[in-house]
Every structure is written in C-alpha cells, then in structure tokens.
C-alpha cells in the first residue's frame, strides 16, 4: 500500500492500539493533522504542549498503556520538554511525536527549528530523527517497543515535514511482525540462584521490611508484594511512587517512608536487618543521609534496571529482572523456606509488634480546628466523599505530601503524582489524561494555589472535551512547601513565597466554562465536596481556603538520617514526646 508519511504514522498508531492522543498543531505537523480526522484516533487539543505531555503521562500512569502526544517543531517541541522529563524520571511509557523543518533545511536555523533530538536526549529513554519516509513505520514500531518494555520510559520521534509528506510503501502484515532491536534486550527473569538466596535471607531475617517502589506498580507486581508480606509476616512501606501497590488499610502497611514518611515506616527501616527493595531506587528523598540509611540491614534489591542496583546503596543480593516475574519465582521459594522453620512466626511476631507500637505511639497527626480548614482535613474528607475509590492526581508541594499521607489508596495506579521531577503544574493536565484513560472513575486533582496557576489553562481543555475532572485547590496563599523550608531552616525569612495577588479562582474557573466552588469554614467542606461530586458534565474546581501556615510532619531535615525526624507537636498531652 502506498501511503504518505502522515498516513503511515497514523496507521502505525492504529496498529499499536492507540485510541487517544493529546496534542497541539503547528506548521511542521500540518500534514499529520490534515490526515488525523480520517484516523480512528481521538485527539484531545490541549491549551499548551506541556499540558499534552502531562495528559499523555497521566493517561499512561492510570492505564498502563503507552501515552501519546503530538507537538509541532521549535516552541511546540520545547514546550513538551518539562512534560517529557517528568514522565521519564518516573519511568512512564510515553511516545512523543514532534514535527520539524524539512530535512533539507535542518541545521539552517530555519523558522521554528530547534535541535529537538539534541534537547530531549538527556530526558528520554531514546529518541529518533526520521530522515527517510522508508524508515518511518519501523521507527514508530521501535519507539513503542522501547517505551513499554524493560524499564518503561519516554521515546521521542522527530518528524521533518517532508518525511510526513512523501510517499512510501506500507505493509500492515510487516508492521505486525515482532520488533527486533539487536542492541536492546532487557533482562526480565531473575537469576534463580539469586532468588533462592533472597528467599533464604527473607526466611531467616529477624527484622525485615519491604521497601516498595513505583516499579512494583508499573510491573503489575502489587498483589504479589502484598502476598509476600502476608506469607512471611513482613511490614511494608512504600515510596511516593509505590504507595498504591498496597491497600492503605493493610495491617502490615506502615505508610510512606522518607522525608515526609511516617514515624513507624522510617523507624522500621532504620532498625531493620533486611531491606527488600522492589522496584525502588534509593532516591535521596527516601534515604535521607545515605550512609546512615538502614545502617544494619542487608539489602535485597529487585529492579529491572541493573544500573539502579548499587547506584546509591550497595546490594547484598541483587536481582535484575521484572518485579512481577521475580516475585512469581520468589514467592513459592519463600513459602517453602518459611514452612521449614518452626520458630519463624514467633520471631517475626515480635518485630511486627514493635513496628505496630511505633505506629500507635507516633501516628500521623494534626491539630484539628473548627475555625479554619486544615488542609489534611480536606484530604480526609475527599477520601470519605469519594469512598477512597477516586483516582487522585496531585501537583507539587505540601498538598502533595498530605495527599500521600492522608488519602488511603485502595488499588494500584490510583495515585498520579510527579515524584522524581516534582513538577508543579502536573496535576490538572495529568487529571485530564487520567480521566480520558479511566472515564469510569472519579478523577480528583489535589492541587495548590501556586501549582494550579502553572497549568490552569487546561481547565479549558477539560471544558472543551467534556472531561469532568474535579480539582481541589488547597489554597494557603503561599508556595507552602518553600515557605515551610524557609520557616524551619531560614529563620522564617519568607522570601517570594507569599502569593499576595491571587486570582478569584471561582470566577476564573467560571470564566473558563467550568464550575467554581469555594469553602472557607470546616463545616462547608463536606457540603461543597458533595456538590462537586454531583456535577458530571463539566470540570469542577473547589477553592479550599485553608490554614495558611500549616507544616508537613514528620519531616526529616535535609541531610538528616531517617530517624532524625521532626515530629508534630501532638497537641498538649503529647507535647513532651520526642523522636529518638
């Protein structure tokens, strides 16, 4: 079949199973957009290319499928950059297509020309510049394969305009044959010897902890990790990216670890003699002062990316492989080992009791109020009103950490948040992508007054395409997280964090065609949330006017060890308790 480059691209997308894409047109992609109406693909026109990238990312995170976005050359491509970097660092499969100037003009500083592959090389898993229409189909096929296999990530395909116009042969059958990339063969199965060793270590440890990362969620290993914990009585903690692997109310679950982790999670890790890291990468926000992280623990490190193993913390038992495949092998092995050891459950019970006592003594806590709305209270109410079932997206800041702490997730892929890059402005467009991917779910974006203003134009996208997302702005009139640091570590020198001039978010959202609501008193919170839940034909944004100087606790100060947490005051009666 003879097709133009644009047609080949769209046909290839169709064969990849792509149904929904996010993008923004421009000169260099005119030929693609010209053919788009004839393809069985729904295109969501965002109001900024960054929004398209985040939406593709959100779509991918909730569905597990590859997210796709389009942008034109030059400014279109550079506008994608933050979105692609955000997805890449959180290992989200996204394929981005950018137009570029025609091949014969490349390198001439032509109108709207940038070196897109050069700019995006460090923030993608791989990228391609297609110089000949004959290579196009094969390149698209490789791009999808690379994005979704191994450690998932971002692949960008740059398409000079002439490549999208020229004609070439396209054979559907040929496209469907398996991809061959001779230099790329990810290791998926764990080494059996290492798995045996790990099982032995798990059965003989006294104080093991499961440290669960985003790789667990993305490989579909969530249920297996929980099962492993249950079979071998192991307390679990998760990173921000791994939170949804474990049901929030699981008796062995200690919540998040790290800088704003729970007391129990951080202490359990510090006191452990065996740390079982599954799809986690020992990020500095997790470990605190690295040399004092889990100082007495042996480490089992399961990861699909061998470069993560030993990068920050040496592993005693490294296992390179897909978390799901490794756990499928590990689980029966652990069951066998545990069955051999009669003493096992007694020894383990002591550890579980100890960990539980930490959780009881120093739970998450905030001073309740019936005068001002506490931000944590809003999150708890959102949880109640959505019955814990909503897909939650967040922006970045205090509200993000409170969401991680107070929303008890029930199922994998339920939280969509920028963990690695910490990208303000992620929440709203990611919610759009999430809702497009999972229209059956309530999608709630928990945002901040600062973050919301970084991509609020995407509310118009939601109105345009009838995407009924809900947004809660936790409005503290501050760049709260930065204010918190200035408060604790810079002597309360609040420099450029006060958002003195703020739009009227209710009017603003109304002007964009959405519904704007506001709550200023604790008593109004539930009412307004219920009101929002009843609206299903338009986006709703609720402006929650909250306590302005609430801080996130616990907090491990930068450079501190995990056990050096600053704890909340616990009101008057517990005021004297201090972290050990």
């Amino acid at each position, binding site marked *: 079949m003879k097709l133009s480059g644009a047609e080949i691209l769209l046909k290839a997308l169709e064969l990849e199973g792509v149904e929904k894409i996010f993008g923004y047109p421009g000169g260099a992609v005119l030929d693609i957009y010209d053919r788009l109406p004839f393809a069985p693909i729904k295109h969501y026109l965002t109001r900024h290319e960054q929004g398209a990238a985040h939406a593709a990312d959100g779509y991918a995170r909730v569905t597990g499928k590859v997210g796709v976005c389009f942008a034109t050359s030059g400014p279109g491509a550079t506008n994608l950059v933050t979105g692609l970097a955000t997805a890449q660092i959180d290992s989200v499969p996204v394929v981005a297509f950018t137009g570029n100037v025609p091949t014969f003009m490349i390198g001439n500083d032509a109108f709207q020309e940038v070196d897109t*592959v*050069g700019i995006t*090389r*460090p923030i993608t*898993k*791989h*990228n391609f*510049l297609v110089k000949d229409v004959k290579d196009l189909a094969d390149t698209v096929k490789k791009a999808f394969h*690379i994005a979704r296999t191994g450690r998932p990530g971002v692949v960008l395909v740059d398409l000079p305009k002439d490549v999208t116009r020229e004609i070439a042969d396209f054979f559907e059958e040929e496209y469907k044959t398996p991809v061959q*990339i*001779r*230099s*790329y*063969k*990810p*290791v998926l199965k764990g080494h059996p010897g290492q798995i045996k060793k790990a099982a032995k270590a798990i059965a003989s440890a006294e104080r093991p902890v499961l440290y669960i990362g985003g790789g667990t969620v993305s490989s579909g290993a969530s249920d297996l990790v929980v099962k492993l914990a249950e079979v071998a009585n192991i307390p679990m903690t998760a990173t921000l990216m791994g939170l949804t692997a474990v049901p929030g109310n699981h008796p062995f679950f200690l919540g998040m670890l790290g800088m704003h982790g729970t007391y129990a999670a951080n202490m359990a890790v510090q006191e452990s003699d065996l740390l079982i890291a599954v799809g986690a990468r020992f990020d500095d926000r997790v470990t605190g002062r690295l040399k004092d992280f889990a100082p007495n623990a042996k480490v089992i490190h399961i990861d699909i*990316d*061998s*470069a993560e193993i*030993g*990068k920050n913390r*040496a592993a005693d038992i490294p296992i*390179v492989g897909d978390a799901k495949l490794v756990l499928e092998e590990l689980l029966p092995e652990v069951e066998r080992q545990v069955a051999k050891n009669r003493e096992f459950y007694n020894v383990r019970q002591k550890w579980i009791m100890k960990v539980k006592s930490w959780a009881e003594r120093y739970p998450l806590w905030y001073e309740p109020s019936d005068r001002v709305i506490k931000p944590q209270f809003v999150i708890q109410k959102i949880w109640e009103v959505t019955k814990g079932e909503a897909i939650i997206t967040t922006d970045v800041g205090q509200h993000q950490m409170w969401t991680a702490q107070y929303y008890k997730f029930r199922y994998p892929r339920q939280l969509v948040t920028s963990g690695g890059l910490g990208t303000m402005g992620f929440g709203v467009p990611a919610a759009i992508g999430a809702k497009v991917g999972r229209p059956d779910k309530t999608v709630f974006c928990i945002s901040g007054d600062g973050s919301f203003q970084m991509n609020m134009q995407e509310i118009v996208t939601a109105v345009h395409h009838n995407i009924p997302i809900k947004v809660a702005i936790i409005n503290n009139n501050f760049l709260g997280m930065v204010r918190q640091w200035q408060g604790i570590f810079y002597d309360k020198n609040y420099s450029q964090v006060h958002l003195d001039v703020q739009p009227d978010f209710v009017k603003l959202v109304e002007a964009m065609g959405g519904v704007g609501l506001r709550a200023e008193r604790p008593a109004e919170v539930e009412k307004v949330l219920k009101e929002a839940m009843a609206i299903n034909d338009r986006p709703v944004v609720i402006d929650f006017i909250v306590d302005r100087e609430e801080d996130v606790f616990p907090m491990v100060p930068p450079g501190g060890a995990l056990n050096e947490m600053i704890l909340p005051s616990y009101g008057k009666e517990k005021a004297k308790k201090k972290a050990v």
Partner: protein
Amino acid sequence: MDGHYRKHIISVLVENQPGALARIIELFSARGYNIESLNVGHTEDPTISRITMVAKGDEHTIEQIVKQLRRLIDVFKVRDLTDKKKLDRELLIVRVNVETPEKKDEVKRLVDIFGAQIVDVSHDTYTVELTGDEEQVDAFLELIKPLGIREMARTGRVAMVRALQGETFGEESKH
C-alpha cells in the same frame, strides 16, 4: 565507596548511528564523569562502531559508568578491559625542534629505540609517528620534551582483548 582511584579503559560496541556517540558523551557530562580520552572507529561490521575510552574513577564510579552505558539502547556491549590481557595501543604524531645536528641525532636515536618513524621533515623540525601502549608514548614524549615540542596529537587508546585468553569480547552479553 571504594577509594581506589585509577584509570580504566572501557570498550563499547555501539550502533554506528547518528546520535549514538552524542548520547554516550552526554551521559558522561550529565552524570559528572570525566573522559580522559575517547576513540571511535568502525569494527569489522561497518554498522557497528567500537568506542574505546579512558576514564578515571574509583571502582564504584567505573561500575556505574559501565552500567549506565549498557542502558543505552544503541549500545551492544560494554567491557572494562583494565585488568584483562589486552592489546592496547595509541598513535602519537609529534613535531619537535631539531635546529642543531645534535638534536637531529638525538631524535633519530630515540626514534630508533622506540621503533618510531620520522614521517615529515623541514629544515628545523622532525615530525615523528609512534605507535605503542600508553606508557611507551608517555616515555617517548618525556624524552623528547627537552628538545622542544612544536605540536602534537594523540589518538587516545584503542584496545582489544588478546586472542586465546579463553574469552573474547563477544562472549559477554549486555547484561
């Protein structure tokens, strides 16, 4: 981590494609590693290039470099050849001052000893070409330095594991 800080010679087989070399070089700058020398050329298969690079670091850093290189999609094989039995060569071209007959004799003598060659001559300079391992090249340069070096170019090292050592490059897979 490991305080043992030394030069490593790393050999990389990579798709001969635009972007592949850029990706490797950018990886070094992005992750803060230093490359001391870098050499690129075809292998027996023109679609595959061999990159030989010398990098300084402790064991942990070098291990990271190797692993990070292996992650790249275009990279087939990465191998740290430092402690392997290998052929390890570098090409030097150097132009030295020889304004006096004594200097001319001295250069000829050194060229003889090192098995080098004089490849270009002017009335007051000799241009010498030398192939050898890094130590030989360094030693040669050390000896001719007092005569006055006008200009020089070194290729950086290229290396290959010796045959009949029970292992060749090809036997070790990417992961």
